[in-house]
């Protein structure tokens, strides 16, 4: 490929990481700039290295944190479950043995791996990022090529700092227009997934473009790229711009001095050329979007909050119809029920999708000075220890506690219910996380995916609600403005 041909952003990053060009159907060998590690998908990879007598090639491009399986209360006490304790201790032993930087429970930089990387300034435009976690797509918000890998690939990156990969196809997701107050990045991505389906992005990198994307904060862009995997895409991308550079400037690991200038010169070239052609394109009208919510057991099964539970009989595709029938049975929902009449037991505010300071601020702005609905449990889990401290400096912990919610320590928590933060069978949640799969938040638990603003309004009203409903309740349109980004 010559440099003169117009290229997409994804192709540019790919070309700049090409160690060996694959021939005769072989994959390309791609260099990895940053490898993020956590306790769940790494132990078997380190075992593999030990068995083969191989070292970690680049400990200086690797960083570990504890997040998936750590408690969010009593973090100063030993982890109760012995299997979980062993897993966390195994990461600590491996990090020490192989010379890898680790942020353990109690450390200010501990937290969800996809919150920690950007927060430290390690995630930056034009780099490749991998992690044994499918939500690694989050980092694409910076214009980085970032994707989740399995444990065999974790071992491969530890040993070689590269991955053999076939080039991805590219899909443009064009989101033009202006979001209405009360509608956020989360609603954009839920609408995208509902439109293209959970398999629509398979084999693609999604590049999010258009005026609605440009006007989002980095946090909003991370929310969108985070859920690319729920559309089947391994990676999502947003071209870097002033918002990106401003976010990065001054962070601990952001380049400094001459390095910053060199980086900026390169970063400004990181955009899809005007006449480059995508393999597929999708268009979303931001002006028309409403708060969005899922009704089923995959993230593509969603509707606007003002709509009703769909009728599977109306679905043409037999596989989708069967999946919808099964989903409604699991979710205990009747076709035609207005989404807003669905009552929840739990509101979960957290996860790598929506647990950054910006998300917590949005949630707090809605619940401030109010009391949660009777019988609803409200759990707020900051994305990292640093986010928690920053939120506390703004009094968000007090707002949550006065509301009647639980203010927890950082981690993945109830998003995947791997630690003790789980729902009971049959319980129903509004959750700011990314997956509504059967049993995801606990065996038999039922999940509705929502934005932080919808989570907050739902916690107040006890039924799936948006700030628009609070406005209607109060008869005043000013109420929600400050919570909207």
């Amino acid at each position, binding site marked *: 490929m010559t440099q003169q041909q117009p290229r997409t952003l994804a192709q540019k990053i790919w070309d700049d990481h090409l160690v060996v060009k*694959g021939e005769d159907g*072989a994959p390309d*060998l791609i260099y990895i700039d940053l490898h993020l590690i956590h306790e769940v998908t790494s132990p*078997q990879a380190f075992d593999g290295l030990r068995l083969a007598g191989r070292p970690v090639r680049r400990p200086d491009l690797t960083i570990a944190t504890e997040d998936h399986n750590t408690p969010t209360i009593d973090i100063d006490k030993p982890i109760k479950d012995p*299997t979980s304790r062993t897993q966390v201790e195994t990461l600590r032993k491996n990090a020490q043995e192989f010379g890898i930087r680790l942020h353990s429970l109690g450390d200010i930089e501990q937290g969800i791996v996809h919150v920690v990387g950007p927060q430290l300034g*390690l995630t930056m435009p034009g780099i490749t990022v991998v992690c044994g976690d499918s939500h690694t797509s989050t980092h694409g918000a910076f214009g980085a090529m970032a994707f989740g890998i*399995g*444990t065999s690939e974790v071992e*491969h990156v530890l040993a070689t700092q590269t991955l053999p990969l076939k080039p991805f196809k590219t899909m443009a997701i064009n989101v033009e227009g202006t979001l209405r107050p009360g509608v956020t990045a989360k609603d954009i991505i839920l609408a995208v997934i509902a439109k293209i389906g959970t398999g629509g992005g398979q084999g693609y990198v999604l590049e999010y473009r258009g005026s609605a994307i440009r006007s989002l904060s980095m946090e909003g862009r991370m929310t969108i790229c985070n859920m690319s995997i729920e559309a089947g895409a391994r990676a999502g991308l947003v071209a870097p711009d002033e918002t990106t550079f401003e976010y990065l400037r001054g962070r601990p690991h952001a380049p400094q001095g001459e390095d910053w200038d060199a980086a900026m010169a390169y970063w400004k070239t990181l955009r899809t050329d005007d006449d480059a052609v995508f393999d597929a394109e999708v268009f979303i009208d931001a002006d028309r979007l409403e708060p969005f919510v899922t009704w089923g057991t*995959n993230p593509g099964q969603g509707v606007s909050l003002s709509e009703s539970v769909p009728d599977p009989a109306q679905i043409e595709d037999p596989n989708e119809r069967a999946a919808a029938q099964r989903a409604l049975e699991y979710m205990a929902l009747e076709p035609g029920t207005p989404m807003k009449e669905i009552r929840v037991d739990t509101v979960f505010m957290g996860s790598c999708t929506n647990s950054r300071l910006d998300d917590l601020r949005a949630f707090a702005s809605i619940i401030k000075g109010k009391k949660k609905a009777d019988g609803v449990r409200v759990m707020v889990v900051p994305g990292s220890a640093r986010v928690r401290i920053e939120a506390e400096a703004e009094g968000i912990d007090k707002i949550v506690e006065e509301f009647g919610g639980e203010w927890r320590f950082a981690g993945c928590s109830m998003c995947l219910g791997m630690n003790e933060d789980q729902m009971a069978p049959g319980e129903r949640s509004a959750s700011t996380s990314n997956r509504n799969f059967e049993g995801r938040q606990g065996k038999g638990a039922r999940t509705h995916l929502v934005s932080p603003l919808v989570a907050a309004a739902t916690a107040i009203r006890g039924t799936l609600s948006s700030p628009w409903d609070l406005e209607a309740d109060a008869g005043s349109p000013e109420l929600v403005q400050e919570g909207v980004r």
Partner: protein
Amino acid sequence: MEAVTVIEGVAVPFRRSNVDTDQIIPATFLRRVTKSGYEDALFYAWRQEPDFILNDPVYANPSILVAGPDFGTGSSREHAVWALRDYGFRAVLSSRFGDIFRGNAGKQGLLVAQLTEDDIQSIWAALEAQPGMSITVDLQEREVRVGDTRYSFEIDDYTRWRLLEGLDDVGLTLRDEARITEFESRREKWRPTTLPAR
């Protein structure tokens, strides 16, 4: 990795679409630090239902799973592949797979064969007409044989070659180590390093 050529055994008509890796193995089983012994965890929640297909004695020793579209979506957990393998599955057939699952399977010697939706429907019908029947998945010929009927399947050439030869990826890559070192010597200074910690 053990080489894969021809797989013959009992096939399960698994009429479900969008089977995500949380269904294949729930997160609570991911606390273990081992790489084998996950057979108890496979489809854990569904196996509690008495009429779940794998609870049917006819499918006590299955080798091939014939699944609906979008099998293995969601989480990157390679445990999903280990659980299928430990349970005895050596091949999964579907019309669409989650990308990460497909990659993980290829690294662990689990053959992931992509057929058309129509062919999957046709195989389901044959298997349901004769529950417990054995079928053949031939990687060399890229075909599935069900009785006298042959169905071709797709798998990329490179994965097929690696499976047929039983090759280990890390070993293959390290043949190019000099080129990795050369690439590293050109790496720009602004790119991130995690050490020393700042």
